[in-house]
């Protein structure tokens, strides 16, 4: 988990979810190591990586969890949602089925995570545009209607990957800042905190905007 001396103000736990094979692992490796692996291995259980970025005047360490996609693992991965302040729900723009099940993933997410979690819908594999099955407008509208951030990415050619993670981390950061004004908590970040009203605030709050392409 990095050295104890590491200098950062916040640790944000972000989970990657979505169907098997949509490219979660490669999104993660692109963001944290700028790598893409054509022959990536099936993720078994959970893997994670971290990357530290600067947001405003704070150093934020993003701890990103990459979970196995298969439904069956949900039972065990549900524990992994605990403490997550952000989630990327990933689908493959060339496989409509992976988009159809986004609803289910969201449902599970809200069942296990704090209600105030910042969620971003990510349509991956834009490099395969000729095989697109999910129109961008459709996904964008779905995201808007459900209060999700939205972006389309390509882990293969790097398009928007950086932007996606930065956007969600900034959004989390802003939420935390707002909350800080009320309670004076420091290092461990919890968006929901203790008071039910802050949760409510976070929920009804309008997301600034989506990352358009």
């Amino acid at each position, binding site marked *: 988990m990095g050295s104890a001396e590491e200098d950062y103000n916040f640790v944000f736990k972000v989970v990657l979810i979505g169907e098997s094979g949509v490219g979660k692992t490669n999104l993660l490796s692109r963001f944290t190591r700028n790598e893409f692996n054509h022959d990536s*291995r099936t993720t078994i259980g959970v893997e994670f990586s971290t990357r530290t970025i600067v947001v405003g005047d704070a150093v934020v360490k993003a701890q990103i969890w990459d979970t196995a996609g298969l439904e069956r693992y949900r039972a065990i991965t549900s524990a992994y949602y605990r403490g997550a302040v952000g989630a990327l729900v990933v689908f493959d723009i060339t496989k409509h089925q992976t988009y159809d099940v986004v609803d289910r993933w969201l449902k599970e997410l809200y069942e296990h995570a704090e209600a105030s979690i910042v969620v971003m819908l990510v349509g991956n594999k834009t490099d395969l545009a000729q095989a697109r099955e999910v129109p961008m407008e459709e996904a964008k509208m779905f995201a808007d209607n459900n209060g999700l951030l939205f972006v389309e990415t390509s882990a293969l050619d790097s398009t928007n990957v950086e932007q996606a993670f930065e956007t969600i981390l900034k959004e989390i950061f802003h939420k935390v800042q707002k909350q800080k004004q009320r309670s004076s908590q420091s290092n461990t970040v919890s968006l929901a905190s203790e008071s039910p009203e802050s949760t409510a605030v976070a929920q009804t709050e309008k997301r600034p905007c989506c990352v358009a392409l």
Partner: protein
Amino acid sequence: ARGKRREGRLPLTPALGVPGETPKSSRSRPPAAMASPAVSPDSSSHEGLSSVNSAPACSPASDSENLSPDELELLAKLEEQNRLLEADSKSMRSMNGSRRNSGSSLVSSSSASSNLSHLEEDTWILWGRIVNEWDEWRKKKEKLLKELIRKGIPHHFRAIVWQLLCSATDMPVKNQYSELLKMSSPCEKLIRRDIARTYPEHEFFKGQDSLGQEVLFNVMKAYSLVDREVGYCQGSAFIVGLLLMQMPEEEAFCVFVKLMQEYRLRELFKPSMAQLGLCIYQFEYLLQEQLPELNIHFRSQSFLTSMYASSWFLTLFLTTFPLPVATRVFDIFMYE
């Protein structure tokens, strides 16, 4: 030079069609299985070797513990020879017997005999005897057998010894195998998604039309049909993949069925995965008991046991350790 070496055959290798192992599988095998080579776990990294001497690292950890440098070098040469032989699609299979008559690699064996260390030879003879007198060893020499397995089963004996260890040599389900392949399974799509992502770096499984991917798919599909409750679960393909590196698909299928049923792996892969939860729980307590400081540190970092240990159980370390090491772990798992 390469071609020449390919044709050479080390003295003991022909004897590897282990006594007692009949070439039974040559009958109605689908074409895929005929060509299934015994791939050594680390073979992928040796394709480019041009000299026998340049391969000191490939001696199997199994037998190299008490050897002198000279012996180690010999052993490395031997292993390299074997590897080349296995990599050669025309060569005879050690265990499966289905290529017995291909002929191209059966050349005089006397020339290389001086290269063989006595120690190595003893190991071969010993394991040959074990396989031959399996029931007796299993019953009366259990302790010694355990010790030998812990030292590592020699590569060429793995296929048969694993089958013997889990009593998978005479299974009725084997006869169903070719029928199962003709059926379609509801899990096919899921399986397909993971085939290219199982040992992607390994030579045997590389390429969409590779033999490795084909037989892996076959075995996973066949299993999903005999065990509808489990069907297909991610993680299990790594176990089957390892089996396929050692033996033809029908045999691998039988061993896998045994592992799932009698070694209770299917409990891990059942839809609820409750058994995995239990394993993690037990492991956590062991950690607390044995390494309390580490446990406290992990906790302080919110580093959950299930985060790092899930795959240890689900793939029996196959996705954690380098293959040669994981294969040794598997040896022990099979017996103990």
